[in-house]
């Protein structure tokens, strides 16, 4: 390859195909990352629309805009789309694909073609979900948990949606295998495990959960087929099966999946905080190992979703205890991030604002999670809107704000264009305030006894529902400002050619903006950790020399 082509940005690089085909058949990890970004944004928008409509329906007791059946399909679609098509693939598939090879000094992932296959499976799975809306029978109305026996009895297109989840599972497994292999085999010379950036550590822990836990949801689906086709009673009590077995198998995957969703966001925050505090991260190894601890313990707590379902006392005891223990590595991370601000030189650029909001919102999500770990308390609040508030604080306040932070941090690097910072700050405040107004009332009404997945509600909960719905409008205003601002920046934002936009020390800031097709002209030799900030020590050293 001539030196000319190596200097071409990946956006202009001309491979075997031109135009659209140059993207959808590209095996370049950066182009695949961008394609995930586009697809995930479309699905996110769809999820937001369903969420918005749900909140609108709940503005008044009784019917406001739609029937109960339609409302039930809204919350199912909102859940399925947000979880399987946005939160699970979000950070690893978009920013992991784009930056993982760059952060470890590699030219691509270990299996580029497998990577492209993952994207195709993802799009096919997503298309199936959307197709289920249009086909006769109507979209699934089971909630994203597909609990048997209701999911067997309903006439809606459940099997479509479950099959979509099955395909999306394979996309997730393949990405996981790809990342584990890439991290093991493709680190640049000199990059030992403890010289890896923390985002890489979090992707590594995530990838292992994807590989180990996702097959279980696949097997569960096959068991449903076996039950339906051969009449073997597994889950359906009408055939002599046990519905609780289905719940166990569902959560054995779906609880670790929660950590697939949050760990990469923790990784993003671990990248952003040292850059904008301009100092070394506090407790690098503790943050890295707490990711692994979360992955291990997080795989053993699934049955805390079922404390009211009826389990042996021993089961309740163990699952409650482990649930409390998994809180500790999360707490360690929060303490270390906070300590990283100490004696830093903090600049509150938009990515930092989102990262700090992440810590606040995630802390509320985590602490309310601890409340549910306590058996007697959980019996009262499980299946109420308290749970809905809790997981939106973790999944949206956590992962969602993690995605927003990553967008503001990395998008200028990916496209060589800077967004309008004033618009970014106003979007931030709309999002932050709107988010809390939307979800905090759900804690209160949940504690007061408002069950979740309710189309209608008793009059005493009206005020909380109305505050929450107003919050959804504020939040959506923020989303519109943010996405418009980012989109416009790609079109006519100020051009950025500086390699190091924010003053970071990880490898992506040492290559061209936007990156060239090959990332690195020469594979770098790594001699230092990712957040050394030696310039901070410079003056001190000089002073010592003078003395």
């Amino acid at each position: 390859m001539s030196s000319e082509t190596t200097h071409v940005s990946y956006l202009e690089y001309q491979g075997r195909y031109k135009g659209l085909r140059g993207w959808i058949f590209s095996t370049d990890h950066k182009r695949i990352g961008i394609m995930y970004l586009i697809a995930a944004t479309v699905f996110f928008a769809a999820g937001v629309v369903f969420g918005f409509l749900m909140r609108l329906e709940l503005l008044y007791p009784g019917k406001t805009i739609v029937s109960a059946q339609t409302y039930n399909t809204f919350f199912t679609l909102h859940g399925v789309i947000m979880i399987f098509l946005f939160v699970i693939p979000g950070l690893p598939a978009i920013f992991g694909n784009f930056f993982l090879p760059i952060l470890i000094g590699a030219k691509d992932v270990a299996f580029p073609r497998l990577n492209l296959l993952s994207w195709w499976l993802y799009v096919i799975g997503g298309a199936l979900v959307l197709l289920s809306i249009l086909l006769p029978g109507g979209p699934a109305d089971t909630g994203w948990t597909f609990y048997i026996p209701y999911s067997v009895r309903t006439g809606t297109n459940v099997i479509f949606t479950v099959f979509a989840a099955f395909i999306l599972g394979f996309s997730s497994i393949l990405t996981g295998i790809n990342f584990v292999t890439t991290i093991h085999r493709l680190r640049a010379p000199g990059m030992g495990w403890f010289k890896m950036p923390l985002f890489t550590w979090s992707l590594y822990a995530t990838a292992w959960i994807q590989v180990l836990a996702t097959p279980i949801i696949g097997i569960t689906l096959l068991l449903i087929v076996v039950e339906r086709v051969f009449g073997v009673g597994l889950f359906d009590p009408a055939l002599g099966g046990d519905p609780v077995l289905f719940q166990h198998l569902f959560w054995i995957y779906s609880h670790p999946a929660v950590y697939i969703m949050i760990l990469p966001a923790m990784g993003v925050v671990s990248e952003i905080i040292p850059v904008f505090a301009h100092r070394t991260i506090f407790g690098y190894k503790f943050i890295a190992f707490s990711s692994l601890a979360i992955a291990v313990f997080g795989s053993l707590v699934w049955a805390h979703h079922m404390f009211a379902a009826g389990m042996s006392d021993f089961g309740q005891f163990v699952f409650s205890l482990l649930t409390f223990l998994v809180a500790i590595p999360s707490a360690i991370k929060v303490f270390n991030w906070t300590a990283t601000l100490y004696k830093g030189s903090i600049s509150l650029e938009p990515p930092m604002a989102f990262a700090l909001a992440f810590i606040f919102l995630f802390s509320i999500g985590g602490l309310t999670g601890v409340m549910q770990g306590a058996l007697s308390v959980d019996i009262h609040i499980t299946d109420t809107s308290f749970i809905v508030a809790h997981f939106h604080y973790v999944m949206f306040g956590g992962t969602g704000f993690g995605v927003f932070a990553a967008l503001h941090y990395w998008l200028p690097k990916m496209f060589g264009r800077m967004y309008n910072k004033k618009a970014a700050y106003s979007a931030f405040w709309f999002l932050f305030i709107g988010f809390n107004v939307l979800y905090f009332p759900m804690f209160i009404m949940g504690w007061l006894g408002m069950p979740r997945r309710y189309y209608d509600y008793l009059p005493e909960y009206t005020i909380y529902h109305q505050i929450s719905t107003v919050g959804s409008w504020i939040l959506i205003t923020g989303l519109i400002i943010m996405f418009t601002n980012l989109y416009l920046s790609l079109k006519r934002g100020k051009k950025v050619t500086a390699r190091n936009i924010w003053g970071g020390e990880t490898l992506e800031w040492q290559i061209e903006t936007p990156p060239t097709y090959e990332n690195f002209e020469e594979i770098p030799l790594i001699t230092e950790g990712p957040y050394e900030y030696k310039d901070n020590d410079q003056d001190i050293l000089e002073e010592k020399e003078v003395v």
Partner: protein
Amino acid sequence: MIAQSVNYAHSVDEAFLFILIVSVFFLVLITGLIITFIIKYNRKKNPKPTNIHGNLPLEILWTIIPTVLVLIMFWYGWTGYKEITSPPDDSMEIDVTAQMWVWKFTYKNGITSDSLYIPVNRPVKAHLTSLDVNHSFYIPEFRIKKDVIPGRKNFTWFIADKVGKYQILCAEYCGLNHSYMLNKVIVLTADEFSIWMQEKLNEKNNQDTVSADNINNQSVAK
């Protein structure tokens, strides 16, 4: 806080309150520190940062303190849970049948009712059966919730310690009218309860006689 109308409500609320206080303390601590650091170590005020790689005693400290706290929380939750799952032997037994989208309560003497009538200060053990899909028997003021699952024998129990009417809701999504699967617990004094039960029994006997008459008439007509 919502009304406490059952024997163990205070222990549930106590556990919740303890965790809530600890949580608020840590949230205020973390948020306070972040805001303080943002102000104190702002780039304008503090252009020269200091590298600190970590501090082992601090790491150990903030691992041990949360561990101890969560173990206490765990114990609170576990002992409270044991109370919720250990009904006394002399409990009054009632069968609760859930079906899309109604509750039915059957007493030992065969009397059935749509609402749950119980005497105050008497342990009640509710056996939960579902005729179709999963439901969940939820009374917020009693702090109890138990899934009602077809093919499973779940139960719950409580001692209502205040006369009054309380909400029953279904808390496990069960289809179209899930949010309308509501009813009431009506807690009566012991006397009122026996009067109610007697009326129900009389009603039932009358009906039995009436239906027996009908059958007789029909056979005569034939």
